[in-house]
C-alpha cells in the first residue's frame, strides 16, 4: 500500500465522520419520530389517540435513529450482495484513527463500547440518584410538603426503573465489554456489530424514558403493575417502550458475551482456568437472557392494552392482574441475581488478587454461581405470597427461596478462606470489595424474613422490603461496582484514581448508607408502607434521620465523580499491571491497543495459582503473567 492511498483513505473517513454518528442519529431519529407521530395522529381517535401517537413516535424515533447512527449500513450492504468489508474497513469501523469521536459513533471496538457503557451507567446513576434525593426530601417531613403526589409517584418510578436498569448493566456493560474479551485472550467480541447495537439500543431507550416527564409521568412505581398501568397517563407508554428496547439490548449483549466466552478463549484457557469474573458475567447474562423476555412480553401486552384496547390485564374482560405479576416477577427475581453474580464475581476476583492467594475453592464458587443461576429461576413467586394468586406455590417457593442462600453462602466461605493468612493489600478496590461482603450479609439476613410466609405478611409492600433490597443491591452490588471501577480504571484509562479520595468515597458512602437504611428497617418493621408521598407522623423520626444521612451519600458520590474526572484528566500514569494480578488483562499495555494482543497468548496456568508449586515463576516476581507467546500466528 502506498502512502498516497493512505492519505486518500484518511480524508474519506474524515468526511464521513458526521454521517453516520450520534449527531445524524439524533437528527434523523427526532425527525422520524415526529413524522411517525404526525402521520398516526391523522388517523388516531378516541381516548387511546394520545397513546397511539406516542408509541408511533417512539417507533419512528428508534428506527430512524438506527438508520442515522449507521447501524444498518453493513447489514444492508451485505444483503445487497456487495463485497465483504476488508480488514481495513473493519478496523475503521472499530474506530481506528478517529480519536475521541469514535465514542460518538457506531463503533465496534469492545473497549470503546465498554467505556460508552461506563459513562452511560454513571449518568444513569446520577439521574436515579437525583430522583432518590427528591424521595428523601419529600419523606423528610410528614405531609406532602415538597412534591405533589403525582410528581412523587413518578419520581419513585423513575428512580426505581433507572436504578434497576443501571445496576443490571453496571458491570456486564462496562467491564463485561472492556475486560472480558481481554481476560479470555480474544481480540474482540464474537459479534462486534451486535455489540455496538446493544449499546445504542440502550442509548436510544434513554430519551424515550425521559419523555415520560412530558407525558404526565406514570404512577405505578418501577413494578408497573397492571391494571393500574392500563389507566396510567401517557407517560406509561414511555416506561413500557423503554423496557422493550432495553430488553432487546440486554438479549443481544447476552448472546454476544456468551458466544464470545464459549468460542473465543485463547489456547489453553480451559474452563477451569477461566477467571471467576468471566464466569460471573457469563452466568449473569445467561440468566438475564432467560428472565428478561417475560418482562418484555408483559410490557408488550401493556402496550397492546393501552394502544389497541386489548384486555390482557382487565379482569372485567377476562384478563388478569396475576398474569402481569407472574410475568413481571419471573423477570423480577432472577434479575437481582443478574445484578448479584457479576458483582460477587468481581469481589472474589479482587479478594484473591489482593490477598495474593488462590481462590479458596474455585470449583465450588463456580458451582455456587451456577447454582444461583439455576435456583434463581424458580424463586419468583415469593413476591406473590400475599397476592391472593397461588397458595399452592407458597411452600415450594419458600423452600427454593431459603435454599438459594446455600449457593450464595459459598461466596462467603471462599472470601474468608481466601483472606485467611494472605498478604492482604487493602487498596481502595479491595476496601469496596470487603464492604460489599459485609453489607451483603445484612441484605441476605433481612431477606430470610421476607422469604418466610408468616413474616412476609408483616413486611410485604413495606419499607422493610425497600431497605432490604437496597442493602443487597446498593450495599452489596453497587459496592462491588465501585470496587470494579477502582480496580479496572487504570486498565481502561491508563491512569490511577486518587487513593485518598477513594477512601473518602468509601467511608462517606458506607456510613451514609447505614444511616439511611437502618432507620428505614425500623420504620418498616413498625408498618410504614412503601411508596408514600405522605409520611404518617408515626414514622417521621426514622425518615428524617434517613434523609439527613442522605447528605453523606451525596458527598461520597461527589468525591467519586471529582476523582474520576480529575484522575482521567491528570492522574498519574498507571502501570500495565497496576495491582499484580495474573489474569490476561494485566499482560497487555494500558491503554490497550486496538486488537488487544499482537500475538494471541497461550495460557498455561490458572490466574489464581499464587504460591502453587506447579507455578513457581509467577509468584516470585511482582507481576509474572501466566502466559507465554504463541509459537505461530
Amino acid at each position: 500500500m502506498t502512502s498516497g492511498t493512505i492519505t486518500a483513505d484518511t480524508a474519506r473517513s474524515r468526511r464521513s465522520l458526521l454521517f453516520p454518528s450520534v449527531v445524524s442519529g439524533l437528527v434523523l431519529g427526532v425527525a422520524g419520530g415526529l413524522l411517525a407521530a404526525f402521520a398516526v395522529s391523522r388517523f388516531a381517535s378516541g381516548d387511546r389517540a394520545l397513546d397511539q401517537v406516542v408509541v408511533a413516535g417512539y417507533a419512528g424515533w428508534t428506527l430512524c435513529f438506527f438508520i442515522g447512527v449507521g447501524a444498518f449500513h453493513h447489514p444492508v450492504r451485505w444483503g445487497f450482495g456487495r463485497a465483504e468489508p476488508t480488514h481495513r474497513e473493519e478496523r475503521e469501523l472499530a474506530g481506528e484513527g478517529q480519536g475521541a469521536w469514535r465514542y460518538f459513533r457506531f463503533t465496534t471496538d469492545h473497549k470503546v463500547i465498554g467505556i460508552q457503557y461506563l459513562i452511560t451507567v454513571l449518568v444513569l446513576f446520577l439521574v436515579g440518584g437525583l430522583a432518590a434525593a427528591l424521595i428523601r426530601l419529600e419523606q423528610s417531613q410528614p405531609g406532602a410538603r415538597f412534591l405533589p403526589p403525582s410528581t412523587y409517584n413518578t419520581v419513585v418510578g423513575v428512580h426505581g426503573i433507572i436504578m434497576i436498569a443501571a445496576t443490571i448493566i453496571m458491570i456486564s456493560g462496562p467491564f463485561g465489554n472492556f475486560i472480558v474479551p481481554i481476560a479470555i485472550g480474544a481480540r474482540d467480541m464474537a459479534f462486534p456489530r451486535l455489540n455496538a447495537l446493544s449499546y445504542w439500543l440502550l442509548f436510544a431507550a434513554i430519551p424515550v424514558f425521559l419523555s415520560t416527564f412530558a407525558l404526565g409521568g406514570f404512577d405505578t412505581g418501577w413494578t408497573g403493575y397492571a391494571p393500574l398501568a392500563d389507566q396510567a397517563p401517557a407517560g406509561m407508554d414511555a416506561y413500557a417502550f423503554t423496557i422493550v428496547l432495553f430488553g432487546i439490548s440486554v438479549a443481544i449483549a447476552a448472546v454476544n458475551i456468551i458466544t464470545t466466552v464459549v468460542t473465543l478463549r485463547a489456547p489453553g484457557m480451559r474452563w477451569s482456568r477461566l477467571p471467576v469474573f468471566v464466569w460471573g458475567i457469563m452466568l449473569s447474562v445467561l440468566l438475564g437472557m432467560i428472565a428478561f423476555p417475560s418482562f418484555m412480553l408483559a410490557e408488550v401486552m401493556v402496550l397492546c392494552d393501552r394502544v389497541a384496547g386489548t384486555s390482557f390485564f382487565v379482569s372485567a374482560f377476562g384478563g388478569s392482574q396475576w398474569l402481569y405479576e407472574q410475568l413481571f416477577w419471573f423477570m423480577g427475581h432472577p434479575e437481582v441475581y443478574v445484578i448479584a453474580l457479576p458483582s460477587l464475581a468481581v469481589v472474589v476476583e479482587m479478594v484473591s488478587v489482593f490477598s495474593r492467594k488462590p481462590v479458596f475453592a474455585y470449583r465450588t464458587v463456580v458451582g455456587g454461581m451456577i447454582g444461583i443461576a439455576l435456583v434463581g429461576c424458580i424463586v419468583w413467586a415469593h413476591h406473590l405470597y400475599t397476592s391472593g394468586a397461588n397458595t399452592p406455590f407458597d411452600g415450594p417457593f419458600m423452600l427454593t427461596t431459603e435454599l438459594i442462600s446455600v449457593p450464595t453462602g459459598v461466596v462467603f466461605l471462599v472470601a474468608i478462606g481466601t483472606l485467611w493468612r494472605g498478604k492482604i493489600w487493602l487498596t481502595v478496590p479491595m476496601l469496596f470489595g470487603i464492604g460489599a461482603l459485609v453489607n451483603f450479609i445484612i441484605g441476605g439476613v433481612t431477606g430470610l424474613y421476607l422469604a418466610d410466609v408468616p413474616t412476609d405478611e408483616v413486611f410485604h409492600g413495606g419499607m422493610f422490603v425497600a431497605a432490604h433490597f437496597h442493602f443487597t443491591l446498593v450495599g452489596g452490588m453497587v459496592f462491588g461496582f465501585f470496587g470494579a471501577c477502582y480496580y479496572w480504571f487504570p486498565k481502561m484509562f491508563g491512569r490511577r484514581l486518587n487513593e485518598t479520595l477513594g477512601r473518602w468515597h468509601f467511608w462517606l458512602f458506607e456510613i451514609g448508607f447505614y444511616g439511611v437504611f437502618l432507620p428505614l428497617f425500623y420504620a418498616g418493621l413498625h408498618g410504614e408502607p412503601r411508596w408514600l408521598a405522605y409520611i404518617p407522623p408515626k414514622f417521621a423520626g426514622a425518615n428524617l434521620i434517613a434523609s439527613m444521612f442522605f447528605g453523606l451519600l451525596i458527598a461520597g458520590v461527589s468525591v467519586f465523580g471529582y476523582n474520576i474526572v480529575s484522575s482521567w484528566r491528570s492522574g498519574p500514569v498507571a502501570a500495565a499491571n497496576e495491582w499484580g494480578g495474573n489474569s490476561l488483562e494485566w499482560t497487555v499495555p494500558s491503554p490497550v491497543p486496538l486488537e488487544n494482543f499482537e500475538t494471541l497468548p497461550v495460557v498455561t496456568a490458572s490466574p489464581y495459582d499464587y504460591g502453587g508449586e506447579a507455578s513457581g515463576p509467577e509468584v516470585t516476581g511482582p507481576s509474572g503473567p501466566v502466559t507465554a507467546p504463541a509459537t505461530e500466528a
Partner: protein
Amino acid sequence: MTQRPGSGRSDHHLRNVLVWWVVLSVLAEIGWLVAGPLLMPAAASSDAVFANTTIVVFTALAIPVALFVWVFMAYSLIRFRVKSRPSEAGPHLVASNGQQIAWLGITGALCLFLVIWGLFGMYQASTDPPGRPLIVDVTAQQWTWTFRYPSAGVSSNQLVLPVGRPVEFEVTSLDVVHGFDVHAFSVRLDANPGSVIATNIVTPTRLGSFSVRCVELCGLYHAYMWAPVKVVSDQDFAAWLRDAAQGSRGGAGA
C-alpha cells in the same frame, strides 16, 4: 516450602479467631434477646405474636452466622494486612472437601430449619379457631376502604372489631390492585379486581386503635389510603353495630 511452622501459626490464629467469634456471638445473642423483643411492633393477634417471635428467632439464628464471616474477615484484615504492595504470595491454601461439605451442610440445615418453621407458621395460621368467625367484606377502591358486615347489614369507613372473636376478611377491589394490610394483626392480602379472596382467620387479642393501610402502589393518592381500626369489647361492638345499622337505615331514609 515451610508448611509445618506455617500451619502451627495458623492454629494459633484459628484459636484466636474462634474465641473472638464465640465471645462476640454470646454477647450479641444476649443483647438481642434483651433488646430484640423491645424493638418489635405492637402485636394485636396471635398471628402477629407468632410473626414477632419468628423475627426474634431468625435474627438470633443469623447472628452467629453473620458474625462468623465478619469476625474472620476483621481478624484477617487486622492481622494479615501488609502496608504496601506485597512482593511475595501468600500460602497456597485451598479448601478441603471436609470444610466445604461442613459449610454447605450447616448453611443448608439452617435454611431447612427456616423453611420448616415457616411451613409450621403457615399451617398454624390456616387452621381455623373454634367458633363461627365474624365475616367482614373489605372493598378497596381508589383511594378508600369500605367495610361491610353482612350479618348486620352495616357498612362503614372504619373497621370496628370485637376483641377475642375470630374474624375473616373477604377482600376485593373495584378498580386496580390494592394491598389490604392490618399490620398489628399480621394480616395482609392484595385486593384484586374481579376476585373476592378470604384472608386467614385472625383473632384480635388487644383492645386499642390500629390502622388499615394500602401497601400496593395504587395510583395518585396511594399514600392517603388508610382507615382506622378499633378493637373494642363485645358490648361496645354490639352497641356500635346497632348505632351503625340505625345510622345507615336513617341515612338511606333521609
